[in-house]
């Protein structure tokens, strides 16, 4: 990572020592952690690493990442006002799973409970989603499934388990796609990461059923600083599903995950996320995939919740003939800013990509599409198509489109199109004249608008998403 090195140099942190343990090490980690201190320091990082019994290289990696985080300025773009309001000293950077159970069901806000009801979420799952129980016990249900995966040589663990059980694979790929110096929040995650998924699919293996974060046992899969690494070896196929349509309630205000996907020659990865954080949360996520020759990576990304989301799933097409596809929807309601988008970097010839982005703004919400398409010199014969559609439900809402296209190669075709509109009166008129109420008509139009997204989701997710949109739209129209 030449860029990473350069940035390290410029920040004057190239010569970071490896004496962190001596400088900051604590020997009575357990006691310390019962206090679960707020704020970020080398001591906290050392503590996290020791508590998890991590190898030396990971401890050092965390410390270096923290220095990068401290040296890097806050991003100067996006919603800088909200970004600058984050108080890093007021955050618990690591909470042990057992301590999460401290909250009681009564503390969960009424509207969240109501949404669970309406979506028909099972009791056990509700408590997990609301952060009342530490985990959603799924071991029994998925036991036979896991046995199946194991026989095929598929590794599917939480990230901490992956590091413990398969250190050689983790060390080879970890942070190769997103180095800590990539951005301030990737550095933060690198320093304090915990939980997330680790998946390795051996060459030629086709994982028939989608892997879901739920399958994992003993996972802190709704962690604040998740770290996910998926490696699809040559010619393999995998579909991973993260998150769910139900609102995830958390008192933690900052969530900053890093997701790295590596699709080796001819492999296929699809990563589906539907994120529905409660409206107090800053969701600042770095997601990036490497697609080697002939590989395909698809991001299917839905952003419904949170106060501010800044998330731009990215595909680096580094091998000839690689393909990237990013399909996203964003729904911004009252007080929300969804700053989402997509990035595709064409670094090899004959690569192709397609970005489809749909956004809905309502009740004063703001949805922004921020994208990048970059084609490097010599990456000839590439094809890119970008389509952004925005729907404004009322006059108080806002929609922005900030696409960027940087083309340095010849024989490439790049197309970008964006449309911003409201629900057409003629369509409403037609539907109401067929006997639908105005609310029903609007909902039908909205469902049609996001249909290219929902049709890519597994059935049960699509149904849930439609129900959720219905819920979100209630009373906001007409």
């Amino acid at each position, binding site marked *: 990572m030449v*860029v990473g090195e*350069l*940035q390290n140099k*410029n920040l004057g942190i190239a010569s970071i020592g490896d004496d962190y343990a001596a400088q900051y090490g604590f020997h009575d980690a357990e006691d310390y952690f019962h206090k679960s201190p707020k704020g970020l320091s080398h001591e906290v990082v050392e503590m996290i690493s020791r508590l998890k019994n991590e190898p030396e290289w990971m401890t050092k990696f965390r410390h270096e990442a923290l220095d990068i985080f401290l040296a890097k300025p806050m991003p*100067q*773009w996006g919603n800088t006002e909200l970004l600058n309001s984050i108080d890093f000293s007021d955050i618990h950077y690591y909470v042990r799973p057992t301590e999460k159970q401290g909250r009681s069901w009564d503390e969960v806000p009424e509207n969240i409970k109501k949404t669970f009801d309406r979506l028909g979420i099972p009791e056990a799952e509700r408590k997990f989603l609301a952060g009342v129980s530490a985990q959603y016990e799924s071991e029994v249900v998925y036991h036979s499934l896991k046995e199946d995966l194991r026989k095929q040589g598929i590794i599917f663990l939480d990230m901490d388990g992956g590091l413990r059980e398969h250190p050689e694979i983790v060390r080879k790929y970890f942070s190769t796609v997103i180095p800590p110096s990539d951005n301030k929040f990737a550095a933060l995650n690198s320093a304090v990461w915990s939980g997330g998924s680790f998946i390795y699919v051996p060459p030629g293996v086709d994982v028939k059923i989608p892997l879901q974060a739920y399958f994992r046992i003993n996972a802190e899969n709704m962690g604040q600083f998740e770290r996910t690494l998926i490696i699809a070896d040559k010619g393999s196929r995998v579909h991973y599903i993260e998150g769910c349509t139900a609102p995830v309630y958390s008192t933690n205000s900052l969530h900053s995950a890093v997701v790295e996907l590596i699709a080796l020659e001819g492999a296929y990865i699809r990563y589906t996320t539907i994120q529905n954080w409660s409206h107090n949360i800053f969701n600042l996520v770095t997601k990036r995939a490497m697609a080697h020759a002939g590989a395909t990576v698809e991001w299917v990304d839905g952003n419904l919740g949170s106060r501010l989301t800044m998330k731009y799933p990215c595909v680096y097409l580094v091998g000839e003939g690689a393909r990237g596809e990013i399909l996203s929807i964003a729904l911004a309601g009252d007080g929300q800013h969804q700053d989402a988008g997509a990035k595709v970097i064409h670094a090899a010839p004959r690569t192709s990509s397609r970005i489809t982005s749909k956004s809905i703004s309502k009740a004063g919400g703001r949805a922004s599409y921020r994208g990048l398409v970059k084609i490097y*010199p010599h990456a*000839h014969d590439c094809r890119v198509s970008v389509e952004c559609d*925005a729907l*404004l*439900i*009322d*006059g*108080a*809402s*806002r*929609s*922005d*489109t*900030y*696409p*960027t*296209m*940087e*083309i*340095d*190669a*010849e*024989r*490439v*075709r*790049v*197309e*970008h*199109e*964006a*449309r*911003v*509109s*409201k629900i057409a009166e003629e369509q409403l008129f037609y539907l109401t004249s067929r006997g639908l109420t105005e609310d029903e008509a609007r909902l039908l139009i909205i469902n049609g608008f996001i249909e290219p997204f929902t049709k890519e989701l597994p059935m049960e997710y699509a149904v849930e998403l439609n129900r959720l949109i219905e819920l979100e739209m209630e009373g906001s129209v007409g």
Partner: protein
Amino acid sequence: MNKQTDFSPTAGNLVVSAKTEFRDRQANEPEWLYSFRKEGWMRYNEMPLPGRVTNLWRYSDPRLFLVKSDSDLMNLPLGDDRNERGDAEEIDPELAGYGRNFADRSSIFILQPQYRRLGIVFSELSRVALTNPHLVDEYLGRLVGADFGKFEAFNAAVWNVGAFVFIPDNVIIDKPFYILRHPAGPATVTRLLVVIGKNSEATIIDDYNCHCRHEGEILNNVVELFAGPNAAVNYVQVQRLGPEARIHTTERLALDSEARGRSIFVSVGGHAAKINAGTVLQGKGAESRIYGIAFADSDQKFDHHTYHHHRAPNTYSDIDFKVMLKQKAASAYTGLIRIERDAPNCEAYQENRNLLLNEGTKAESIPELEILNDQVRCTHGATMGPVDPEMIFYLRSRGYSERQAVSSIVHGFVEPTLSKMQANIANVARELIYHKMQEG
């Protein structure tokens, strides 16, 4: 990693003379003009160089447009009007007026005799500031003033030659006003101010032409146009400066209610061109169209920005910007459409197409939308691509030479935009493009 470069005002050898006091008022200089300049000087020294993180400056190094010895410029006398009667010379009968800003800051402005009794003012700007101060004072800097940005503040402080066009209410001029601008030397700082009254119509052709063969010849230019209620304005900017020129132009057109604006930008010259063109739709029912054709070759660097700002209801805007690139040329196009909350029922369209004629060219396109209102219809589109080899193959199989084939594809690329311009202006643009096609 040019983003890591130091862009503080003191970076490199281009030291901005932050401590320089502004000069004293010159003998014939009106008080309002002096304070306008002084304010510009203050803002210029206060403001840092534009940050490179914003899209507006992401692709151009602002230091390219910094003038080295600005204290010398400050002390230049106001430009004079060499041929002050102007009626001694005959001009092309197809023009309503002919004006020329010379490199030595002298000027000629001639108005066709039949238009002289209509109350039209067509003259050198700093001269009008002395003879008709109220006209200039009312409009100067209202759209692009000292607060606009560092380079615009610099312009406000030290501009010394320019042009002024004033059309009173209810006057329709069907022939164009032509102004030739002739920058030369290390720095030329110039302004154009156009005021068109209620129900009036005029066409302004603003032509930039110079030899500019010495490195670092900078033109800092500001254009402000005001169209009153139900007025129509055609503004045509032709940029064909010499190969070493660096151009920083900021243009704004304000449209009052029911006013119609058509702005055309033809850009072929210069080494580095940073052109910021925008129309503010201030009055209800205003309509704006911006058409651009840019053609860069060798190692030219173009950076065009367009801005449509809908501030009133029922306004309409359309942008069609075509870019062609040859050899090692680079182009950045950024366009923003912003529709304000209290501006319902607007329509806004934006289209940017880039044709890359060979390998080694570089094009960026950032068409942006900021929509704060749901009663809108808004689309934008951008494409980039090479000359399609299949099309070439087809044309070759029909007996065209390679050159003819490319030329007919270029024709198909630019003609839809040219056809939206008036015929005589389209001809000028067409000639510049085809001439450039033939070169090299």
